[in-house]
């Protein structure tokens, strides 16, 4: 299943990449592959901006505006004037 095209804020700086492979390990949507010993983006539109890759890149080569892709969170955030967070449906993203 694919979401909207050309929206992600994901940026990879291949010059900084040391090819450790961490981004490939943590990404839940297989956005990265290793090409010529460095990370490369192979499926950009699959990115859900979770921020896992950026936070775990030891070379600081990845930038993304991470957040929750949840309409309810944006609505609640807009009404209460707070950051959109995902605690309305605690059970929904839990699975074995």
């Amino acid at each position, binding site marked *: 299943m694919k979401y909207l095209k050309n929206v992600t804020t994901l940026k990879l700086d291949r010059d900084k990449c040391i090819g450790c492979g961490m981004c490939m390990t943590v990404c839940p949507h297989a956005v990265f592959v290793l090409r010529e010993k460095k990370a490369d983006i192979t499926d950009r539109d699959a990115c859900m901006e979770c921020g896992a890759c950026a936070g775990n890149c030891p070379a600081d080569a990845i930038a993304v505006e991470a957040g929750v892709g949840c309409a309810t969170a944006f609505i609640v955030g807009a009404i209460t004037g707070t950051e959109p967070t*995902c605690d309305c449906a605690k059970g929904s993203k839990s699975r074995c």
Partner: protein
Amino acid sequence: MDDMAEKLDCCSNGPVDEHSSAPWLIGSIPSGQDSCPRVATRLTWADTLGRWKVRWALGRDRYTVQPGLYAVGEADSDSLVFVTANYKMSFDCLRSALHNRNAWILVLDTAGINVWCAAGKRTFGTDNLVDSVANINLAERVNHRKLILPQLGASGISAHIVSQRTGFKIVYGPVRSVDLPAFLDSSMKATPQMRKVEFGMLDRLRLTPVELVISIKYILFAMLVALVASGVSRTGYDLHAAPSRALPALTILLSSWLAGAFFGPVLLPFFPVRSFAAKGAIAGLLAFALAAGVGITQKMTSIETCAWAAIAISIASFLTMNFTGASTFTSPSGVRKEMRVAVPAQIVGILGGIVLLIINLFT
């Protein structure tokens, strides 16, 4: 900080009331200078019942486990350490995946929120993990320097920073804890499949009860308003005529609720558009067409029919749009983009529908 230390101090004289009464605890096991509670790895009917309650949004706010360190099997200083959130379901998934193994479970205080959501909020995060490892003196309890985290916790954690600050190296396990035994048995190599989040029909079906329960209050309120308003006519207010006149409206409201909170989410990939609001709008339109097809709108004027179509489509669109939060692949940038168009359209649809219904009274 002291407060935190006390909460995590499960291995000494901390607040153990919750522990001693928990049916999934089976004694304790020595560790370092003291002892740790030991957990069962087979889930009981009580665990399963709790899970169903959560799924149907009944009292799920209290579904927590006390943070701290727990033992599985005959855990000793060589046993691996697995980290999870203090949401009981996350904890249950992990302990049942560790059946017949010796291990430690480190439960972080995430305010009862599951790993993925808590990682997004950074409560399942680097600082919390570093503090917990220090507070329970993990370095003195185990000989190795390895922590196994669920992959979906990665968005809250910076593995290299945890290593710098604690000396423990992080290994990201599979996305689903059911894959954990296979992962452990293959010397911690994850297959590409274990690394990917899926969102199949079953996952979606499992998530719709919560959507239905959360939205039903608003639909019931709308139905009540529709019922009361149905008494209004050009000749005045007729309370007795209201129920029978309201019937078509109530049916349409209910069907748009089912379309938006159930059929939209469950049939997600079958709508030929990508925006969730658009998927919901199509579901709403189909539901309305179906209702019209079986004669629900027969006694309506054409203005009324248009009004209810606009309302039904807007409601369903709104409800399915909110399913973005339960899905596993929507990005905040994408949701923001679709909402910029969808929310004004939904408001226009609902208010426009109401205006049309009022106009209809005077024509």
